[in-house]
């Protein structure tokens, strides 16, 4: 079976501007040579520290950030789309099939629009409905699915709590019936008791609609609970990609291991965060030669400083490290 999304050798660059008029514009890579394939109906967690390129990768997948090298290929039900050569018409089709759920339910909803209008906007913008009553029906249907009170659809966002606002965001993202969703830190701003409800909702809708989700988060406990597969990013590279159980029970990459060691355990009898990673993620401007993780890795060798490891199949994992042993 061919995968739903196939990313090959993807580079995404940002401009750093030029130092003076006479010098060339400088670029740096936020996403560096990423290869990734995602199967249909999976929830893929994307985890890493700030500055690792998680959000940039997510945006590139949505066609919201242009990329400079490599390819992104989608196999939608109605045919496949290659993001590197999209016509205007195809772009419109593509936009209806992918959606983003934002982090902050306070800033991502227009305060001047009613909830009904917020949810209906994608349908109207993409011209997916023929009449107002059809739009209303679609809005009501998705609002019910997202457990919103449909009698409150004419209210404005300010009269809703954080959890309810995130339900509105989700309804807006799903109303055009996309096949792929990028959820970028979508529960990070919520209290745990509310967060659990939103995760439950996302999971049940994902099941029902057969959605594929890329779930970007820095919170490993949430990822461990919610996702099927996990990709770990560091300085623009995916360093490990494996099914959830493998990542959390048998992490292979030294960075994945260090990340897991830093997550506090809720069991007070088990003091676990003493052995922690030192230093910080290097600036993206001074990407080192060789392995990106060398400056903080406990197993670093001379080899690591010279050769850049690529993702290799290792048991059920894909790992980018040259020092793997069983």
């Amino acid at each position, binding site marked *: 079976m061919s995968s739903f999304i196939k990313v090959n050798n993807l580079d995404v660059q940002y401009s750093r501007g030029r130092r003076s008029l006479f010098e060339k514009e400088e670029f740096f890579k936020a996403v560096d040579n990423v290869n990734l394939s995602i199967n249909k109906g999976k929830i893929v967690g994307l985890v890493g520290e700030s500055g690792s390129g998680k959000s940039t990768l997510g945006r590139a997948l949505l066609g919201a950030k242009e990329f400079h090298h490599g390819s992104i290929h989608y196999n939608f039900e109605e045919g496949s789309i290659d993001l590197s050569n999209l016509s205007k018409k195809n772009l419109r089709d593509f936009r209806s099939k992918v959606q983003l759920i934002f982090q902050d339910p306070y800033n991502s909803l227009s305060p001047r629009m009613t909830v009904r209008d917020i949810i209906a906007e994608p349908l109207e913008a993409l011209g997916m409905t023929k009449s107002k009553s059809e739009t209303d029906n679609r809005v009501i249907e998705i609002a019910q699915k997202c457990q919103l009170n449909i009698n409150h659809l004419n209210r404005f966002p300010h009269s809703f709590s954080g959890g309810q606002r995130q339900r509105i965001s989700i309804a807006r993202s799903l109303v055009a019936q996309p096949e792929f969703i990028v959820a970028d830190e979508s529960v990070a701003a919520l*209290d745990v*008791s509310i967060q659990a409800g939103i995760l439950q909702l996302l999971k049940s809708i994902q099941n029902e609609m057969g959605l594929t989700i890329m779930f970007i988060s820095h919170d490993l406990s*949430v990822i461990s609970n919610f996702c099927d597969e996990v990709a770990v990013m560091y300085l623009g590279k995916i360093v490990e990609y494996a099914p959830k159980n493998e990542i959390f029970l048998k992490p292979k990459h030294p960075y994945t291991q*260090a990340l897991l060691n830093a997550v506090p355990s809720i069991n007070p009898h088990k003091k676990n*965060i003493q052995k922690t990673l030192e230093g910080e*993620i290097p600036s993206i401007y001074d990407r080192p030669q060789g392995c990106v993780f060398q400056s903080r890795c406990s197993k670093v060798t001379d080899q690591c400083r010279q050769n850049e490891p690529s993702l290799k199949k290792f048991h059920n994992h894909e790992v980018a490290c040259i020092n793997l042993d069983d």
Partner: protein
Amino acid sequence: MTLVKIENLKIHFDTDEGQLLALDDVSFNVDQGEILGIAGESGSGKSITAKSLMQLNDENAIYDQNSKVLYENQNLLEFDDEKMIPYRGKIFSMVFQEPMASFAPAIRIGDQMIEQLQIHEQLSDEAARQRSIEALTSVGIPNAKNLIDQYSYEFSGGMRQRAMIAMALSTNPKLLIADEPTTALDVTIQAQIINLIKKEVQNRNMGVIFITHDLALLAQTADRILIMYMGKIVESGTVFQVLTNPQHPYTKALIESSPNIENFQKKLLPIGGEVPLLKDRPQGCVFQNRCSQFINNKCDKDSPLIKEIEDNHFISCHLHHE
């Protein structure tokens, strides 16, 4: 030995909607060398409690007459701004959640540290600068001699939080109040900061009030925990009592809803409903509308009293008042 004792702390906020009760009869103490964790969701009153110690709440806060914040047998709530100066940065010190917002962006980090030192102690510029450099070095900032002249935006998030802690510790406080000190940080940096705070507590024998919404973080740091909900302490005890043998339905529900990396197959159970607004504070138990063990005609009538169910383990719930 008890360092600070809070007794019957009760605060109303004077708003357009009337006087709203925000803290209701909060009593606890912090010992020397102890990390006291305060946990609860947004709006539970954690930060208001902490700010009361330094009288840093907004001007519309009205403290109840019987409320006391006792330090060395004096009630700090009776002090005016002048008398409070030593308790704002010297005897009590605070680390805030957002290090970017808590440093002035246009003043060098060093100058901010020196200013604070000179307010509280008679120090020459040179001596204050030296103390600041030492403080920065002790929290693991390399090359502090040069970095002290930088601005906060030139620091990474982790460095900024270290500098914040260095600044808070430079006056040798007796009590450190840390309000969500790692919430904005990555897990690896969070672990570094936590280990730093724990080390300093041991070295200095100071007390710490550690405020967070993350129970796992408290499991790894705190000696005792208070669980707050709508301005009340609903459960308190040692970290082991509260987290491994929780008794209040809210504490239990909070643990049930928290994802756990060691048990990732666990089904998360959200707590139904939402925290009521302050103006809709219910009669009786504050948790009644979300509680799975709600007792009709009891929980909606009487406010439960605080009861000690085992040594030093307190809860406030009708289920334990037979």
